[in-house]
C-alpha cells in the first residue's frame, strides 16, 4: 500500500506564468531549492537542500528525473531522497480557472504499508532516524526563515 499527498490550489496568475514558475530553473530555486532542472523528459536533476547549522541539519540532495513535461499542463518527476523515500513521484497539473490557474499537486509512492518491513527499513541506507531529523530540520528551518 502506498500513500499519496494531494493538494489543490487556485492561483490568480495565468497558466503560462505558473508553468514558468515550476519549470524555470532560477524561479524553481526560489520556491524550492537550487537545482539543475531542464524541462525535458528523461533529464536527471537534483535539488540541493542547503544545510542549516542552527538546527543541526547537514543538508541533503534529492535526486529526480523528469517523467512528464507537457507545457503548460503537466509536469512530473521522480523524487528520491536519502532514506526510505525512493522513487516517489511528484506531479503538477495545471488547469485554467477563470483568469487564474488551478494547480493539482501530487506526491505519490510513499510505502507505508509495512513500516517495519524489509523494503521500508532495510533498504534505507541512512535509516529512519536520519530521514526524520532531516525533514524536521527543513521544516524548522523554513519556519525560522519566515520570521
Amino acid at each position, binding site marked *: 500500500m502506498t500513500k499519496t*499527498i494531494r493538494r489543490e490550489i487556485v492561483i490568480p496568475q495565468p497558466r503560462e506564468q505558473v508553468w514558468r514558475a515550476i519549470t524555470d530553473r532560477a524561479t524553481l530555486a526560489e520556491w524550492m531549492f537550487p537545482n539543475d532542472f531542464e524541462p525535458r523528459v528523461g533529464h536527471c536533476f537534483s535539488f540541493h537542500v542547503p544545510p542549516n547549522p542552527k538546527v543541526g541539519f547537514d543538508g541533503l540532495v534529492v535526486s529526480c528525473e523528469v517523467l512528464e513535461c507537457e507545457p503548460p499542463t503537466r509536469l512530473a518527476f521522480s523524487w528520491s531522497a536519502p532514506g526510505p523515500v525512493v522513487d516517489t513521484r511528484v506531479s503538477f497539473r495545471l488547469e485554467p480557472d477563470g483568469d487564474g490557474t488551478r494547480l493539482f499537486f501530487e*506526491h505519490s509512492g510513499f510505502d507505508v504499508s509495512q513500516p517495519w518491513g524489509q523494503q521500508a527499513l532495510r533498504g534505507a541506507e541512512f535509516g*529512519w532516524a536520519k530521514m526524520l531529523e532531516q*525533514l524536521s530540520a527543513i521544516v524548522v528551518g*523554513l519556519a525560522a526563515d519566515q520570521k
Partner: protein
Amino acid sequence: MVVTPDRRPDVFGAISHPARRRMLDLLVEADRSVNTIAGHFQMSRPAVSQHLRVLLEAGLVTEQRRGRERCYHLVPERLGPVREWIAHYERFWDDRLLRLQQQLAKRSKE
C-alpha cells in the same frame, strides 16, 4: 512546533540500527526468547541483549520471563511515529506551494 527535543530513547533511534530492525522483523512473526533471537545473529549474546534493551527502552518490545528465559513481544503500535514522516512531507509541500504562490504574486506586481 515540529521538533520536540525528546531525550527519551526514541523509536527512530531504536530502529536506526539494522540489527534491531532485523530483530523487529523476527518478532513480527512470533514472540521469541533471547536465545532464539541470538541464534539469528553472529554477534555475542551480550551484544544481542544490549540491542534488545534499546528496543525495550523505546517501548517497541515488551519483555516477559518464562521460566529461565526472557521472551520478547513486539508492540507494533509504537511504530506509529514512523508513519508520521508523511505528515512532515505534507507540511513541507504546503510550505513550498505557499512559497510558489508568493513568488508568483511578487512577479506579477513587478
